[in-house]
């Protein structure tokens, strides 16, 4: 995730202090990974240098945490461009799991056991996310759903591979 663009986007509704920005970010997007203050200030000084934000005011006492930042016209244009640009889909072509399956088959180990263990690990995580989703608000539900759909896609691949192990074994050992 682009922290710079996200902080810029949060500034669009009005100027904020660095600690306000961190709090807003953590509340809306931080969930498992809250921002460090250091990240906020290094990002803000970069945005400042690039003319995407400006200092709107400094409270008495000095120090970077007292600065109030406002987004500039260039900053708004930058957020706009970022939102319009589609994200590159993950190609998932370098799969550790695929490599492990092939290696298991090549070395005479049980690829089926490997797939079953992976499946159980995926389901374990799905159960944790489902539980969190059940207790959470709509934001939690959407974030967990995104993760759950990806895990589900992995599981479908695991199933499909398990069903084709004999065929794959013949091919990789040929």
């Amino acid at each position, binding site marked *: 995730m682009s922290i710079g663009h996200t902080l810029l986007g949060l500034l669009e509704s009005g100027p904020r202090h660095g600690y306000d920005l961190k709090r807003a970010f953590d509340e809306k997007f931080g969930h498992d990974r809250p921002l460090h203050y250091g990240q906020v200030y290094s990002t803000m000084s970069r945005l400042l240098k690039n003319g995407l934000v400006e200092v709107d005011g400094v409270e008495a006492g000095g120090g970077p945490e007292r600065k109030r930042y406002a987004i500039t016209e260039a900053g708004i244009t930058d957020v706009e461009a970022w939102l319009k640009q589609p994200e590159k889909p993950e190609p998932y072509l370098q799969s550790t799991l695929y490599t492990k399956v092939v290696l298991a088959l090549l070395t005479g180990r049980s690829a089926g056991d490997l797939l*079953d*263990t992976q*499946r*159980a*690990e*995926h*389901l*374990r995580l*799905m*159960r*944790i*996310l*489902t539980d969190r989703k*059940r207790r959470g608000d709509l934001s939690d539900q959407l974030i967990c759903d995104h993760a*759950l*759909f990806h*895990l*589900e896609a992995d*599981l479908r691949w695991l*199933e499909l591979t398990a*069903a084709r192990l004999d065929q794959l074994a013949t091919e990789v050992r040929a």
Partner: protein
Amino acid sequence: MHQAYTHRVYLVRIVLPMSLGSSSGPASGPLLGASGLRKAFGSTPALDGADFALSPGEVVAVMGPSGSGKSTLLHCLAGIVRPDAGTITYDGNDVTAMNDARRSALRRRDFGFVFQFGQLVPELTCAENVALPLRLDGVRRKDADRAALHWLERLEVDSVARRRPDQISGGQGQRVAVARALVTAPRVVFADEPTGALDSLSGELVMRLFTEAARDTGAAVVLVTHETRVAAYSDREITVRDGRSRDFTLAPAGAR
């Protein structure tokens, strides 16, 4: 809350004394267990030595590819199909040794069922559908209606109480079916692809309300599904492959 509590006490009082062997079973061991189950349809084996164990109040997902034998396992466990070999015990009693009448009574009084579709009586309203199992067991209409309304509220479909099944959505229909399965205070609910005909959002709502209601009442659930997102509502999953069952469940991260 207070109203729900009153109904709960009422249902337990009515239903439990009629339960088969509810006090005769051993204190420990699974509520429902099976070992070495075999079942063939003609020359095609559906189960080939499947084992199963269900603790009271536990939600267990039965997963596996199409044709793996997962529905046959559910039908055997629920006493709908008699296995060719192996044993099934419920609350310490040998289900395979029971005659048809006893198995039928067990299904009616201790078990609840939710299927993929086509389970509501089309001529009856939703409230009448939910009240039906109690009425068949001789509960007075007024009491049965009150319990039905409680369960429709619990599954958040009390607004369709007076409608007939063809006047409600698929997701609402499944929630009415869950209400009907829970109205007799069963100790085990068997659910075979309960969200199979629903879109993701309706399916999620059915599963959330279903598992929460089952957990609140202490009912155990055997959930057959091929959808992993549905299975994620369970406490544990077993996988059926080529007629054999295996438990791959990993303990929660904190317990490992």
